């Protein structure tokens, strides 16, 4: 029967997979990583101080504040949704943490997490139980969280300070085995993220919701619950990042996080996750975050202090990576097509 012959042919061909395609595939699936590595190597040569431990740990630390936000957002995007509220929720988390730090370490950590999770939960509930697109719900969330923040701080004029002796400050400043706590936090969170995506049915449920929402429902998957959770987690992550920033800056700065959602989306996209949902990677988002930080670091080094040029460069980087990913996946598809039944060795889906 033809099905057998198809697979046989595919198997036979697998050995002969062309080098071009192998490379294209590797690059496409890890496009951001490849670009990141190239960039690091080149700049290590171009700028002697770039590869210094100090600078690298600076980059790592900077990335550590954006990374949790991007992680939460990644999972929302898996479901085909989007969370525009993360920037405001991030700022709100910071303000709450700074305010609550007067009541001790636990309060400083828990208050922002709880409130931000609740905001995420409410958004998730609206997305799950109505058919309002998440774009609109979280756009409203963006406004609401910012308004709430202003209301809590007398129209933004009150900046809460973390007491100088608070253990909460250690959260961002302490380190273990030479790596700062925020970096450890990212490592742990992303490890959990990877496990959740690949090794729990929750992970595949999210992808199913993003890929084929009707099918997910008809397959009896817990669509509503998963949607709720994913937005709640995104809120938690943004709140956590905000709390970390409050610890780092020892205060609840009210103007933080404006436009952060766009940076986070850019990081997720750079990482190779489809904004349409249904497919993507967790690690890619981390790579995307680091890539953005490295680019910023380099721009500073090149003396391009005009922040307008920085914006132009950031936009261009985003486009270049997106185009590169598309072109490389085309090369790959062509190569695959050249062989009969090549579907068998298409990039392994989850």
């Amino acid at each position, binding site marked *: 029967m033809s099905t057998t012959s198809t697979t046989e042919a595919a198997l036979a061909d697998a050995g002969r997979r062309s080098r071009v395609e192998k490379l294209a595939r590797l690059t496409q699936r890890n496009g951001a990583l490849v670009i990141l590595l190239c960039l690091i190597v080149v700049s290590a040569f171009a700028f002697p101080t770039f590869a210094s431990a100090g600078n690298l740990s600076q980059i790592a630390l900077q990335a550590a504040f954006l990374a949790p936000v991007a992680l939460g957002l990644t999972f929302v995007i898996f479901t085909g949704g989007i969370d525009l509220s993360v920037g405001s929720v991030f700022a709100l988390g910071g303000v709450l943490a700074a305010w609550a730090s007067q009541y001790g370490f636990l309060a400083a950590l828990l208050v922002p997490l709880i409130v931000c999770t609740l905001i995420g939960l409410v958004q998730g509930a609206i997305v799950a139980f109505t058919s309002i697109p998440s774009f609109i719900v979280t756009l409203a969330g963006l406004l609401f969280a910012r308004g709430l923040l202003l209301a809590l701080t007398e129209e933004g004029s009150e900046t809460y300070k973390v007491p100088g002796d608070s253990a909460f400050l250690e959260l961002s400043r302490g380190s273990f085995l030479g790596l700062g706590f925020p970096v450890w936090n990212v490592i742990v969170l992303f490890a959990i993220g990877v496990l959740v995506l690949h090794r729990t049915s929750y992970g595949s449920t999210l992808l199913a919701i993003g890929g084929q929402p009707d099918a997910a429902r008809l397959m009896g998957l817990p669509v509503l619950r998963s949607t709720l959770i994913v937005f709640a987690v995104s809120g938690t992550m943004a709140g956590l990042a905000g709390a970390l920033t409050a610890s780092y800056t020892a205060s609840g700065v009210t103007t933080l996080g404006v436009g952060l959602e766009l940076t986070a989306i850019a990081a997720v996209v750079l990482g190779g996750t489809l904004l349409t949902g249904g497919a993507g990677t967790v690690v890619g988002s981390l790579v995307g975050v680091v890539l953005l930080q490295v680019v910023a670091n380099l721009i500073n080094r090149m003396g391009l202090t005009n922040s307008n040029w920085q914006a132009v460069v950031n936009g261009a980087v985003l486009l270049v990576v997106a185009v590169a990913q598309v072109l490389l996946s085309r090369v790959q598809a062509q190569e695959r097509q050249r062989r009969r039944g090549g*579907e068998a060795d298409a990039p392994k889906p989850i």
Partner: protein
Amino acid sequence: MTDTSQQGPAQPHEEAALALAARGLNKSFSGVHVLHDVDFSLRPGTIHTVVGENGAGKSTLIKSLTGVYQAETGCIELAGSEVRFNHPSQAQDAGISTVYQEVNLVPLLSVARNIFLGREPRGRLGLIDVRALNRKAAEVVQDLGIDVDVTAELGALGLGVQQMIALARAVTTEARVVIMDEPTSSLERREVEVLFSVARRLRDQGVGIVFISHRLDELWELCDEVTILRDGRVVHTGPMHELDRRSLISAMLGRDITEHGVTSFTDTDVSETTAEVVLEAKDLSAPGRLQSVDVSVRAGEIVGLAGLLGSGRSETVKAIYGGLDTSSGQITVKGGPVRRGSVPAALRAGIALLSEDRKAEGIVPELSVRDNIILGILPRVSNAGVLSNRRIDELVDRWIRRLGIKVSSTRQLISELSGGNQQKVLIARWLCTEPSVFLLDEPTRGIDVGAKQEVQALIDELAEKGMAVVLISSETEELVAGSDSILVLRDGEVSEILTDDQVDNSRLLSALVDGGQR
């Protein structure tokens, strides 16, 4: 054949153990009453078919039973106790496993994930044991006789394979009730037989099975009981064997129809060698899919394409139509060359393609029936881009009347129509283009006998009027009855050509089998 649902007589064990029962279901959509007081009883260990015209309400009944829709009135009993499902997952948890009419799986996930989504084997820490998952999936798939890499992305597989995967998902749930809504519509005979043996095995294990199909012959082969729906009402229910084909059809349609044999293709072989060659496709190749396929069709001729799943039939017609990237080949229509790989060029040359995948490649769900019909002839119903309502209405009315499409208004959304009527709208779309070559990929898939005969007669009529037709069908009878000659494809190559009196069922079957076995 009376309008009674034979509740409760004779069968002694019925009361004790109905696997699934529904009483007095009513369901309507935005004012359209689709189910009227429908009663339905499924006994364990039987295969029960629900038949009816397109739009009779079969899928709606299924969805009302499984929690996709909530009926407005009526009750549902599962194994004797009343249940109410607000969500398909509740029905699934209660032991009802369903294969819906449209394949409802997740294309971007792997085959194995799709089969076990939501109930994956767990290992340590409650994490999914990926290896066990793939192994179990491979076993299930092999059991169903399909050979496919379970780690491959589902979306990369043909529709037929996907249908089998959906079946695999349904049978692995150890359900007490399995419901299959037109599971065979995209399957080959061989897969159909696998499916039947799976169904019989389940039945012997005491599972109650609901089976829906428009391929009527399958019903007598497989089913024990039948319920006939007409316009949302149950018009008959009883044992399958008590009905003959003719009475089943007339109960379904509410009128008698005369059948000329199995199909309504007339037997006038018009393949006069004198007629001009309208479509000539030479040496069509697409990397990995087609190798040097030649197709030539004369005016008034119907050329059939036969082959097993994935043999490249759909690819061949798509290549002719410009919808598939080809690496070589020449296409001419009435002697004029057609640019390869361009749908607009093909359309201009008078080629039309009715695609096999109605949902993904045919209908535009958000548009009205009217707009769907004129989609292929926009330049012709407009002046400098401005639509001419007069011309549109004229055309649309004509074709709706001509094909007997059931719509409440031409502005109704096409997604609100039943499958068969959607198919007719698409046929209308292509006939509007007044094609000289009509490529029909599974034109009768999923449409009821009445509509099927109409479509078949229509194809015949078109050919008689001089159209060149290429016909793909998984039903060999249809292919044999309809075609003047048949190209048998295997792995993207033409393996045999049957002409004139070679066109018969046994020749075709043996050609297919030879092809399959190499």
